[in-house]
């Protein structure tokens, strides 16, 4: 499929980049990315992936837009309050770029549905707000051999890492098990500065785009952390020894998906 003149103009700033070019833009058009969580991280990621011309974007979220979401979840507007987040996100993405096909999944991600959800996608973005979901997504992506971007934000801090099968540690290599419920504060208890979702969610979209077009180095084997109060970034090297990991190691002890007790932010 050749690009129309309109598409050539729309994507001209991508096509002129030697790392993308018309070839990379075609890869984006043929790519399928799943965003789990249409919130602080997922909202900016979805906007940039739609604008970038990622051909198929899946978005999964069980919730409806709430007034307290709008401080950071920039894909939703005041008029969307009460609407399923996936519907609101789909409408905004389609308004930005009619080239994009958006698949919506108005559901929580569980051990029952996660493998089915991710199976048709090339890259997964974890934009969830709780540890049970983050571990579930990690384990499912390891088992299904899917690359994904992990991220977390709280207060004025954020972090992310990228997992690509066979290329370094997974989330569970670094964090063995979810902390007990309420042991580590959630964003509702602790708060989060709105722009942090924009910073870190945009970087997740960046990793997805780089993965798809094959540009540069991904955050595999590194945890990138950001402290906005100090305006300090750190790219922390992670141990490369993954042999003993319970899920991605040589002799995995976790061979079935686990639904840990939920302790999510109830205000989303």
């Amino acid at each position, binding site marked *: 499929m050749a690009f129309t003149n309109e598409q050539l103009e729309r994507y001209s700033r991508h096509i002129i980049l030697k790392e993308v070019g018309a070839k990379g833009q075609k890869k984006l058009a043929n790519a399928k990315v799943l965003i789990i*969580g*249409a*919130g*602080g*991280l*997922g909202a900016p990621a979805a906007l940039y992936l739609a604008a970038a011309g990622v051909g198929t974007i899946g978005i999964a979220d069980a919730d409806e837009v709430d007034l307290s*979401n709008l401080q950071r*979840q920039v894909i939703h507007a005041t008029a969307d309050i009460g609407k399923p987040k996936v519907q609101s996100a789909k409408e905004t993405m389609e308004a930005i770029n009619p080239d994009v096909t958006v698949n919506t999944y108005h559901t929580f991600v569980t051990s029952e549905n996660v493998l089915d959800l991710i199976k048709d996608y090339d890259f997964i973005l*974890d*934009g*969830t*707000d*709780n*540890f049970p979901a*983050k571990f579930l997504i990690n384990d499912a992506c390891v088992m299904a051999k899917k690359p994904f971007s992990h*991220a*977390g*934000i*709280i207060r004025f*801090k*954020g*972090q992310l890492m990228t997992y690509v099968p066979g290329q370094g540690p997974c989330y569970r*290599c*670094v*964090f*063995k098990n979810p*902390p007990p419920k309420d*042991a*580590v504060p*959630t*964003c509702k208890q*602790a708060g*989060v500065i709105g722009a942090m*979702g924009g910073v870190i969610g945009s970087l997740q979209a960046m990793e997805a785009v780089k993965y798809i077009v094959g540009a540069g180095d991904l955050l595999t084997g590194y*945890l990138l952390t950001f402290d906005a109060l100090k305006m300090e970034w*750190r790219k*922390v*090297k*992670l*141990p*490369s*020894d993954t042999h003993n990991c319970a899920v991605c190691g040589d002799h995995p002890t976790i061979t079935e998906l686990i639904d840990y007790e939920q302790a*999510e*932010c109830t205000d*989303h």
Partner: protein
Amino acid sequence: MNITVAGVKKEVEDGITVAKLIELENVETPEYVTVTVNDEFVESGSFAETVIKDGDSVEFLYFMGGGR
């Protein structure tokens, strides 16, 4: 002796353990922090016995659960 903690060079007493360093650094939620020394994981049950050596580089990795 001199070590590096989260990218910052520090002088600490000889023979300091990971557990003692966690205390000195006021690590948040110390029970749930992941520690690496020279890019190797330190088992979470062995912080009290793991002695840091001169020139070591220590990192603290924190759970960050928010996102929506």
